[in-house]
């Protein structure tokens, strides 16, 4: 019921409107406003025209028109990763939904909160192979946290509320809401559902006190303790607690690819990323530690390598909000199910309490060992090359941006170099597709990040292959004035594919070389942006400074790099952490 009052000729009139009925499209947009959604990334089409018509009539919810639905999902994803708020996507039925699937799967693998609204054909046409019909709920089922088909407009608001609730709580993830066209025009009363209750969904937050106590005791008694933290710390806003915990314990810490920034990379206790392309010191410390605590990491195969050889001497503690992540691949000794920030808070108190019982000499010896490993200087590369080394380009990027940029990455060698050489000191700065490894992610994700942080410096580290997978979003970037700086390491190869072919397929470079690639400078210019090509190491710093000085322009830096460079260190798939290749000249084990 709504009560309107208005005054005509100094006389006050009341108008009582009972049961204001809104149609589904109005409800959807009203709901997004009430839920606090500011940006929706999307692309219109037949099934969602009523919704787009409602979008047109208001200004609070800003729609970002992408050039391909994949771009919408990655942009919403970048927005979500850099803010912690759910990314919202609106696409049409059929091809709109299928184009979105890659981005949905990308978000799913990295547990990113997103709500994707897909249009659907009329309810009465579902199952008839109607024009632009696909079973969106069926297609997305294996790559969403949950999904819904709304068959009745009366369920729309509540379903949307559930979608946001499920997407953002517990272990986050994408949720699809499939809305048939006739539901968007059917009417009902709208009340914003303030709360939601689902008997079948109750994520655990608080860790079990006994388990936490056991873990703290093990860590304090350890001679060679080690902390291995992942993306869960960022998703769970547990960075501060992780720093306090690590400092209290005095142990070395490594981050996964997804966890970079959760602990400051420039801090002394940080020993680099671990895993397939992790540092020598991080991987050796994993191999040699006697107590390992994993915080919000999921023992991914790129991190673990050979399961039988993973941390062979260690008692393993694992904090995770998702019980199914615990003992999925590596069986752990002390599982703790709970929110990382909450569990760490409990653990910090216990560690501080028992600190005096720690074996200081053992810890000192452990750090001496780590210092020795650090002395291997495993990330060293040829700094006197006449060609631009990709590592050099990332180092320059770090310097020029004072380590203060948001860096969205594509997938491949450049991604690994960015992870190794850009020292992230804060969470939510490193935006990359770690789990699914989606080429084409970088540019649209960077656009999403820039929209969320209009005044921030945003770089997109990419390569000549990845950038071509969502290059159309250059047009979106112009329309919404997102002055992203694209750092494209151009080696004409799919570099990571080439590297594996060199190592494991006797240098048979099957289809990994692109004989034709566009002139990226002209291409960028035709999209209305600034393009630069840099071919000499000595020109790079100046050009980069110039690019970043253009605060309101997107600049595409086409950096011609050494084609033969490989990512080191490297652990071949299925090998142990101690079996690293450091460089062609420095083979180990």
């Amino acid at each position, binding site marked *: 019921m709504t009560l309107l009052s208005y005054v005509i000729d100094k006389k006050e009139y009341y108008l009582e409107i009972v049961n204001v009925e809104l149609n589904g499209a109005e409800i959807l947009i009203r709901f997004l406003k009430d839920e606090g959604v500011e940006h929706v990334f999307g692309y219109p089409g037949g099934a969602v025209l009523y919704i787009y018509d409602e979008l047109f009539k208001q200004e609070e919810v800003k729609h970002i028109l992408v050039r391909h639905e994949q771009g919408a999902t990655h942009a919403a994803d970048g927005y979500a990763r850099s803010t912690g708020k759910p990314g919202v996507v609106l696409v049409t039925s059929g091809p709109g939904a299928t184009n979105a699937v890659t981005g949905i799967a990308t978000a799913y693998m990295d547990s990113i909160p997103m709500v994707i609204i897909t249009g659907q054909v009329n309810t009465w046409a579902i199952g008839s192979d109607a024009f632009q019909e696909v079973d969106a709920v069926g297609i997305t*089922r294996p790559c969403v*946290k949950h999904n819904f088909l709304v068959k009745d407009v009366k369920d729309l608001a509540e379903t949307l509320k559930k979608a946001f609730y499920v997407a953002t709580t517990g272990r986050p993830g994408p949720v699809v809401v499939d809305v048939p066209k006739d539901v968007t025009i059917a009417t009902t009363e709208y009340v914003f559902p303030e709360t939601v209750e689902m008997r079948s969904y109750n994520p655990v937050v608080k860790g079990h006190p006994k388990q936490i106590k056991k873990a703290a005791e093990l860590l304090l008694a350890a001679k060679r303790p080690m902390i291995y933290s992942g993306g869960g710390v960022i998703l769970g806003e547990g960075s501060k607690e992780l720093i306090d915990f690590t400092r209290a314990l005095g142990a070395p810490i490594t981050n996964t690819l997804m966890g970079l920034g959760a602990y400051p990379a420039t801090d002394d206790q940080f020993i680099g990323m671990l895993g397939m392309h992790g540092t020598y010191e991080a991987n050796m410390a994993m191999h040699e530690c006697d107590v390992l605590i994993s915080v919000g990491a999921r023992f991914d195969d790129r991190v673990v390598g050979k399961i039988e050889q993973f941390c062979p001497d260690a008692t393993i503690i694992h904090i995770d909000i998702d019980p*199914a992540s615990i003992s999925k691949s590596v069986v752990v000794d002390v599982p703790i199910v709970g929110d990382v920030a909450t569990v760490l808070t409990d653990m910090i108190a216990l560690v501080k309490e028992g600190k005096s019982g720690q074996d200081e000499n053992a810890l000192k010896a452990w750090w001496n060992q780590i210092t020795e490993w650090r002395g291997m200087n495993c990330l060293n590369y040829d700094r006197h090359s006449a060609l631009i080394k990709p590592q050099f380009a990332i180092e320059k990027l770090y310097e020029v941006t004072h380590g203060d940029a948001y860096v969205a990455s594509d997938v491949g060698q450049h991604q690994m170099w960015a992870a190794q050489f850009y020292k992230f000191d804060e969470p939510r700065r490193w935006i990359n597709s770690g789990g699914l490894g989606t080429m084409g992610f970088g540019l649209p994700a960077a656009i999403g990040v820039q929209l969320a942080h209009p005044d921030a410096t945003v770089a997109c580290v990419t390569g000549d292959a990845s950038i071509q997978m969502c290059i159309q979003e250059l047009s979106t970037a112009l329309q919404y004035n997102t002055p992203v700086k694209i750092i494209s390491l151009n080696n004409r190869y799919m570099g990571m594919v080439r590297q594996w072919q060199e190592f494991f397929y006797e240098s048979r470079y099957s289809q990994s070389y692109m004989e034709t690639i566009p002139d990226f400078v002209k291409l960028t210019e035709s999209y209305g942006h600034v393009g630069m090509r840099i071919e000499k190491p000595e020109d790079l710093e100046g050009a980069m400074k110039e690019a970043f000085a253009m605060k309101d322009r997107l600049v595409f830096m086409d950096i011609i790099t050494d084609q033969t460079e490989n990512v080191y260190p490297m652990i071949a798939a299925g090998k142990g952490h101690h079996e690293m290749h450091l460089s062609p000249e420095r083979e180990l084990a």
Partner: protein
Amino acid sequence: MRHIISVLLENESGALSRVAGLFSARGYNIESLTVAPTEDGSLSRMTLVTEGSEQIIEQITKQLNKLVDVVKLLDLTEGAHIEREMMLIKVTAEGVDAREEIKRLIDIFRGRIIDVTDVTYTLELTGTGSKLDAFIEALGNTTILETVRSGVSGIARGAKSLHV
């Protein structure tokens, strides 16, 4: 080891395919699966028979619990339980001797003949899976025209119950 997992799930379209999809996507075995609404129309009860190592069964129960539509579950194999399966089986029954023999056999197994023609019997039998297997074995040379098995349903013994 063989496990019987009982699941209470939201009686919603798509809930069954989420469970089935989970098993195929993660490569778990399903020996049998039965599902029907309970006395509370908003809930379905599912009985899943699966096989795997302790670690795999642990993953299966965790992954099932993670599905938003799953309200509660119980691994019946962890405690004393009762399992039952129903079978309808149509056999040829020609000649007095053969008809007598089949009738005797189904009596021994405490089953029933539920449909009769000049040349066939349709039999109904309830029990554990292995009892049904044993009956099929015992039919020997009798020609089986059709076998329909319901899949296993299970319930915990004693006062223990799976409910919301």
